[in-house]
């Protein structure tokens, strides 16, 4: 009917308005025609509608809200049809049956609140029994009862008696009456148990609702007691009317208590988030706040740190599920477990409050962790940026020195030699000198080539990464190159990625050669998404990236294109350096 929350949101308020109009508007006329007993009934309806309206705003409580509204409607139907217009055919029976429906509808709310539905076996069974009691005997009774159009006047207020109706109807009505007593006592029992067991932050609210339930049950029972008293002529009709009025008054108080409980929980909700947020993610603070908002002093939080659970004080812990406890996993934004809440089962009494508190906990922990991670990441990034710039500057200095010490000196030597030719005494001598200049020039060119290769190897340009690596390996003895994918599969590499991987491999190779760790094997593979270059040497191992060293710089440069480097170098070797990158330079946040 109104199970769908969207529908309830749309139709709920209108249903309330319609119910109020139908139930409340005729009341003054009823008072004029009938009697003042209508007034408590109308007040009961108004209070029920108000509570229903309040609960409609809580998505989880829409079903309870609907029950409250229907209880109001049933109550209105009962008084409208059973008294003033009872003379009109069978409407009297409809009203007669409807008035009992108030009990299970309202009981459902009392048994469940503050949870969205009844919890526990005894509550469920009691509710079912109440529904059977509220429908079956009275329906049978109404069906067997045939109003005599000539004796209408007598029917007023007489339908409850055992003597004035056909035997079947009377027996059914009697069974219903006895049922009222059973349901009433049972309800008192359930509610009293609830009163006693209430603990934690929920205790006041649970007790309010339990008190409301007890009051309703007492009211129901008092009706039946009054009927017996009237039958045995112990009290007169007027006395019974007073008891009826008292019953209605008790019902009103019950509803008011329920409304009070609803208000209480509403007032609590924003505080829950406020209290959690105020902790700013401090481990002990969050745990203390959770205990406070859940009213559960035994609540504990365990933090998942890379698969190890630590308690709020940072000591390793291994919480196990125990009787009377509930464990709830709090996920981080990636859906991985970040914390574990170990709570008293009593928090399940108010699943909404618990859900809000745990969500707030989750949020606060996430925010705190993100802040820590962000700061660490920013620091890493700033350092890596500085290292890359420093690297660039160092490379410029090295390049200038290489030009100055190498090519320039060679060319100056050529120039000097040619000057000697000017001073030569004869042709033979000058030819010798020119030959010497020629060979010096060759050396200068070789030097220039070596330097250019260091800046950007031409093999990398036309042979791609495999070509570049092969050319690099060819320059050294005891170095082997293995291509694990086809050469064309490397074609998709960005130039940046290609060059970065090449120089990372060159760094790794020169490192291996520097420490005399030959033979060295370089392996390259590309699957169209990721490129991997592995450099394995047979050295003594123990290679560690030191700040400012080649291996550390390698890590920064790979991180800058969204890739990474893994260095495995146990003492005794071998050293394995794995260079990985996506085929396209990525700006994804990679930590250097």
């Amino acid at each position, binding site marked *: 009917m109104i199970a769908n929350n969207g529908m309830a949101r749309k139709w709920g308020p209108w249903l309330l308005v319609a119910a109020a109009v139908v139930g409340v508007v005729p009341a003054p006329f009823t008072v004029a025609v009938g009697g003042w007993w209508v007034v408590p009934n109308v007040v009961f309806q108004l209070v029920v509608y108000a509570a229903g309206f309040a609960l409609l705003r809580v998505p989880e409580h829409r079903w309870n809200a609907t029950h409250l509204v229907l209880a109001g409607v049933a109550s209105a139907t009962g008084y409208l049809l059973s008294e003033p217009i009872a003379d009109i055919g069978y409407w009297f029976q409809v009203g007669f049956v409807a008035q009992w429906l108030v009990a299970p509808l309202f009981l459902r709310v009392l048994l469940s609140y503050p949870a969205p539905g009844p919890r526990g076996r005894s509550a469920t069974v009691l509710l079912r029994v109440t529904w059977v009691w509220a429908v079956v005997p009275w329906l049978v009774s109404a069906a067997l009862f045939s109003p005599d159009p000539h004796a209408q006047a007598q029917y007023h207020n007489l339908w409850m008696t055992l003597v004035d109706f056909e035997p079947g109807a009377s027996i059914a009505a009697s069974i219903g009456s006895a049922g009222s007593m059973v349901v009433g006592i049972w309800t008192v029992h359930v509610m009293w148990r609830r009163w006693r067991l209430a603990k934690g932050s929920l205790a006041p609210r649970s007790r309010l609702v339990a008190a409301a339930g007890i009051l309703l049950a007492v009211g129901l029972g008092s009706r039946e007691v009054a009927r017996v008293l009237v039958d045995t002529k112990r009290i007169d009709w007027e006395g019974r009317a007073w008891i009826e009025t008292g019953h209605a008054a008790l019902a009103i108080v019950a509803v008011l208590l329920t409304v009070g409980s609803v208000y209480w929980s509403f007032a609590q909700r924003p505080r829950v988030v406020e209290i959690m947020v105020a902790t700013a993610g401090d481990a002990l603070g969050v745990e203390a706040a959770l205990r406070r908002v859940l009213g559960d002093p035994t609540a504990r939080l365990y933090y998942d740190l890379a698969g190890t659970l630590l308690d709020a004080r940072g000591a390793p812990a291994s919480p196990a599920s125990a009787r009377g406890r509930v464990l709830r996993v709090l996920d981080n934004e990636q859906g991985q477990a970040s914390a574990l809440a170990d709570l008293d089962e009593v928090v399940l009494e108010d699943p909404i409050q618990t859900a809000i508190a745990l969500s707030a906990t989750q949020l606060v922990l996430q925010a705190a962790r993100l802040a820590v991670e962000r700061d660490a990441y920013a620091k890493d990034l700033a350092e890596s940026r500085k290292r890359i710039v420093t690297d660039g500057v160092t490379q410029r200095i090295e390049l200038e*020195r290489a030009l*100055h*010490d190498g090519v*320039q*000196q*060679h060319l*100056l*030597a050529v*120039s*000097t*030699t*040619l*000057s*000697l030719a*000017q*001073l030569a005494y004869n042709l033979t001598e000058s030819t010798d000198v020119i030959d010497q200049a020629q060979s*010096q020039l060759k050396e200068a060119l070789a030097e220039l080539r070596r330097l250019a290769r260091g800046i950007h190897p031409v093999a990398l340009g036309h042979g791609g990464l495999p070509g570049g690596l092969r050319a690099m390996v060819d320059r050294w003895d005891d170095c082997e190159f293995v291509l694990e994918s086809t050469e064309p599969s490397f074609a998709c590499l960005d130039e940046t990625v290609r060059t970065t991987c090449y120089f990372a491999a060159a760094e790794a190779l020169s490192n291996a050669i520097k420490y005399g760790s030959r033979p060295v094997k370089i392996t390259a593979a590309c699957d169209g998404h990721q490129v991997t270059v592995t450099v394995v040497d047979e050295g003594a191992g123990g290679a560690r990236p030191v700040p400012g060293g080649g291996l550390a710089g390698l890590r920064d440069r790979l991180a800058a294109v969204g890739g990474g480097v893994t260095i495995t170098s146990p003492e005794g070797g071998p050293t394995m350096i794995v260079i990985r990158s996506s085929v396209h330079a990525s700006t994804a946040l990679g930590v250097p």
Partner: protein
Amino acid sequence: MSGLRVALADDSGIFRAGLAALLTAAGVHVVASAGDVRTLQKQLEEHSVDVAILDIRMPPTYTDEGIRAAIALRKRHSDLSILMLSTYAEAAWARELIAVIPSSVGYLLKDRVSTVDRLIEAIEEVADGGIALDPTVVASLMRSNTALSRLTTREREVLAHIAEGRSNLAIARQLHLSVRTVEVHVAAVLRALDIHPSPDENSRVLATRAFLKHQP
């Protein structure tokens, strides 16, 4: 030729060897040759040397070891002439050098080995107590020196040649002028730079120093 005794200091072996061969062929005695400053200092203790030819950038820091070594050498051997031979023509280095070693000093680009006459000329000039700066250095000093705007184009040319360490005769030959005309220009330059020739001091050295000092 001149019979001058020189010592070389340059960290590049091939250049040192080439230069030694060239100087020897040109009639200069290369009595010492070192790859770093310390070795040169030791050799100077053992040999009598007229001119020390030093590279500026040398180990260990590859910045201005040569200049600092030159200053130290001049302190130890007051009659030692210094010729800096560098790959770089830095006006700042020239200024720094002349500021602490006011005479018998030169600063040439290594490129000058291609014109052996010019190289020998510069060596002789510094050995003779004069100053010899590389044309590239002089040109860059000229460009940045606003005080020289008083001079005529011809006078500036003459000043540049003086700074490069040329004699009046050499300047006359270079500019296709008579020696007499050059002498007139030199006198005008000295006047413009407010230099009054005295018998004790080399007025040409003073002119070069004044020229360097007028830097902004």
